[in-house]
């Protein structure tokens, strides 16, 4: 059953983004940025944790999860060491995603050439 839930939620997010993409002149870059900000907002009020506990990987695969990871790291740091912890902790959870994407992009761009 949980597989069906994750299918449903991830598909739902993709369908809404496709609708926005068709109806407006936004590019995929805009959509990704909007989704990250949306993830930050939902996570700031604790809604995203409920989504993850209900939809599991369906909620962690979309890019909205990136915003959630940033916010959870920042709030953990804030609880530990105050305002400086916000800046210390913001990349604790989301760091693996960013650094892995950078390393992957660098290595792949060295290995392959653009095909025309």
């Amino acid at each position, binding site marked *: 059953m949980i597989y069906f839930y994750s299918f449903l939620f991830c598909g739902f997010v*993709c*369908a809404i983004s496709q609708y926005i993409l068709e109806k407006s002149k936004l590019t995929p870059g805009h959509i*990704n940025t909007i989704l*990250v900000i949306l993830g930050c907002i939902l996570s700031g009020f*604790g809604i995203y944790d409920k989504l993850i506990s209900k939809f599991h990987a*369906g909620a962690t695969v979309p890019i909205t999860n990136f*915003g959630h990871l940033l916010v959870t790291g920042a709030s953990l740091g804030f609880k530990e060491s105050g305002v400086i912890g*916000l800046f210390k902790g913001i990349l604790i959870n989301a760091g693996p995603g960013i650094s892995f*994407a950078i390393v992957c992009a660098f290595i792949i761009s060295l290995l*392959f050439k653009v095909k025309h």
Partner: protein
Amino acid sequence: MKNEEYDKLIKEIVVEDNIVGNIIISFFSGGLIGLIGEIISNFIFKNFNTTLSDSYMITFMIFIFIGSLLTGLGFFDKILSVCKCGLIVPSTGFANTMTSSAMDTRSEGFIKGIGSSIFKLTGSIILYGIVFGIIFGFIRGMLL
């Protein structure tokens, strides 16, 4: 040619995108990726000694790797034209934008090419993610 004739010609030539069809396609392709992600993260959680949140992170990273590799091989755009938003919204889209901007400017050298333009498109995601992450991290720290 008069304006009306021109409009008629345009309507005949340009095929309008089927919006409802595209939305349904992206629903199923995106859902399929969520399903695969659930299977992978379940597999990792049960077979390797990780926490649940770590297994989600590894799944996220696996999709980043797949997105990068498909972009490098040149298949990503072909799959994207079939799957629509189902590939942009998951982390594969994030990897694709980063890898493609790195690959495009590779010929201009390491510093001026790859180094300066790898964040050309994903920079906005990281910038607004961190700015809003600080604001809402503060709110979350106060509330929860």
